[in-house]
């Protein structure tokens, strides 16, 4: 059985200078999760232009998406979205392994690996995400 222990008031973000790697992993997973669910609602709202597009005016959908993609700020925000998605995926995989009892002694290392890999994937993706926007 797992043991419970007093971890202090974890909601007190004023203690951030005392946070361990595990705490940062927890904070970043929550933050990226909030961003992703917020984006999902926005995404479906924008894609809802497919509804009038299906009844005879495809330009509503195509025009909306392509107009948004012409805005440099949207491209920058997409890189931000990629960053949070990649981190949430990689850290999520790490958490699934931890749940399975795999890699318990190397949790700090795997968190740092998640961060480094996220950075590498995002940097490598930037040219594709901003091509033609500037």
């Amino acid at each position, binding site marked *: 059985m*797992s*043991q419970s222990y007093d971890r202090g008031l*974890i*909601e007190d973000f004023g203690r951030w200078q005392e946070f361990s790697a595990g705490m940062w992993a927890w904070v970043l997973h*929550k933050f990226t*999760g*909030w961003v*992703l*669910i917020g984006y*999902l*609602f926005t995404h*479906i709202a924008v*894609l*809802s232009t*497919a*509804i*009038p*597009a*299906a*009844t005879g005016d*495809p*330009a509503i*959908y*195509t025009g909306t*998406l*392509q107009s948004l*993609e*012409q805005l440099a700020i949207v491209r920058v925000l*997409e890189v931000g979205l*990629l960053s949070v*998605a990649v981190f949430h*995926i990689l850290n*999520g*995989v790490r*958490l*699934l392994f*931890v*749940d*399975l*009892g795999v890699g*318990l*002694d190397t949790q700090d290392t795997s968190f740092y690996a998640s961060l480094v890999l996220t950075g590498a994937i995002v940097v490598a*993706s930037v040219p*594709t*995400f901003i*091509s*033609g*926007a500037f």
Partner: protein
Amino acid sequence: MAERYSSFEPKGTRWFLQRLTAGFLVVVLAFHFMLLHFVHHAYEITFMGTQARMTQVGYFATMTLFLLTATFHGVNGVYNALVNQGLSGTRKTAVKYVLVGAGLVLTIQGVRVALAMTGMDVTL
């Protein structure tokens, strides 16, 4: 102790579904980004291209399941995060129903969008 600790034991349906949807989303979210940013560029997306993809049964089913699992995983995750922050009592109940409602609205609208992407008239 860390050596003996594993949380992968029965902890209820929502706990298990959160892990199950996570496993599915890891794969499909990565696929979604790859397909619509690297194979097809986002700035080249057209309704015709979207329709061509969504009229393939496998792709449609995958994207619809993507919507359902992402909605559950996200809404359940928000609920868990708020409970973790100390939400309890009447406020907890109220938040639960607000989140269930938001999840249902998102699911219904998302399914309408998916069907419209196949060319179906879903106007109310």
